């Protein structure tokens, strides 16, 4: 077993366990914490795939950003209600069946796919390559993303401010 194999199994276990906990725990706040764990584990996957830049972005935006916003929303809403929100699930059996069917379906497609290609040697510096792609061929897409972020900010502000 190489270090990479060990790392993969550790990260995969953490990721799957915390993902399951996200959808199963009755406590909403705990669910968010598990999500944070799952997101950090995903960052670990990126590290295993030798993408330190995406590792950092994942931590910064997802674990630092998304989790913070969600926690903030939970705190705010619970304070408005004045009680702890228990979260319940419904149609658990049906949901499990559908999710399992989707998984089996995906795996069915994967089995037939030619995926045996070995991992090519890592390029030296993907960070620079990403940067060049962002301001090169994907420059217009990046600009569009900028508009999208501004619009999302505008929309979030519109809802969050109270005028009445």
């Amino acid at each position, binding site marked *: 077993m190489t*270090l990479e194999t060990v790392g993969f199994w550790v990260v995969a276990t953490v990721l799957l366990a915390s993902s399951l906990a996200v959808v199963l725990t009755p*406590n909403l*706040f*705990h669910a968010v*914490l598990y999500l*944070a764990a799952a997101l*950090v584990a995903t960052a670990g996957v990126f590290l295993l795939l030798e993408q*330190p*830049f995406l*590792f*950092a*972005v994942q*931590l*910064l935006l997802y*674990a*630092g*950003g998304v*989790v*913070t*916003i969600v*926690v*903030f929303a939970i*705190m*705010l809403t619970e*304070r408005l209600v004045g009680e702890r929100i228990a979260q319940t699930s419904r149609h658990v059996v049906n949901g499990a069946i559908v999710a399992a069917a989707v998984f089996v379906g995906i795996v069915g497609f994967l089995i037939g796919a030619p995926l045996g290609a070995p991992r090519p040697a890592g390029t030296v*510096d993907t*960070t620079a390559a990403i940067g060049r792609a962002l301001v090169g061929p994907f420059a217009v897409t990046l600009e569009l993303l900028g508009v999208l972020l501004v619009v999302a900010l505008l929309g979030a502000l519109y809802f969050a401010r109270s005028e009445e």
Partner: protein
Amino acid sequence: MTLPPAAWHAIEAFIVLNALLVLVAYVTLLERKFAARMQSRIGPYYVGRPHGWLQPIADALKLMMKEDIVPTASDRWVYNLAPIVFLLPCLLIFATIPFAPDLGVADLNIGVLFFLAVSSLEIVGLFMGGWGSNNKYALLSAMRAVNQIISYDLPFIFAALVPVLLAGSMQMSAIVAAQQGLWFVAYPVVGQLAFLAFLVATLAAENRVPFDILEAESELVAGFRVEYSGMKFALIQLGEYAHMLGTSFLGALLFLGGWLGPGPAALGPVWFLTKAILIFLVVTWVRWSFVRIRVDQILAISWKLLLPATLALLLATGLVVAMRGPGGA
């Protein structure tokens, strides 16, 4: 000796970590002494006479032996884990800081980004503590913290990116190397402004006075850690100071030329430490000189002043770099 590289890294990390813990302990003593001087007091004196040299050790021992209290109504699991989750990123940020050329755990090529990313995780531990305590003050403090950290993350990142742009690299050692001729703090106009913004954002991101509304003793007792005692309290305290120290190191690296200085290369770490302590002392100086400001003022400063200003600064830096042409310093 032929150890695998991973083992070397582990040993290196172990040494850095322990040196760090000692350093953090003594930084608290430094702060107390410094504060005392500002107020014409003496500060810690008796333990380790004449100047309280053993005070941090005594403090640590005291905290370790204190009773560990867990509030009955707390979310036990979250409450107990919070100090560790809080401390971990605060220590991890040191992983990419080189203390001299080739002296550090890992000099990643995304060093600065790694620092910013990992330190953004600190908040998770913070609101775990605030939430888990099931205490009104703690929760309020955690909410304020979220507010403040969301607001000041961006200016902090933008300010830190100015040296990155000037150096053309996110690698810490490359940034220092680029300051060979001129420290970035001395870089005309953009350097000083960025350093100033960096300092202000640091104060806010570290929840230091005048931005310490989340632990505001007079309103929230001690903020999110109000319920913590004993070793857990010590861990949180350790985390805070480690983070503060880490940010000081980052500031010294980004703006003050890191280990560059007169004298032989072996003096590098000394220079570096001196500069970092200097930044730390500036922050402490602000802490003991200013009053706390209101929540809305804090947010207004960030969104209406600091954020646009740092963004404009970043743009200006981009222009400077573009006009200077690639490669030159």
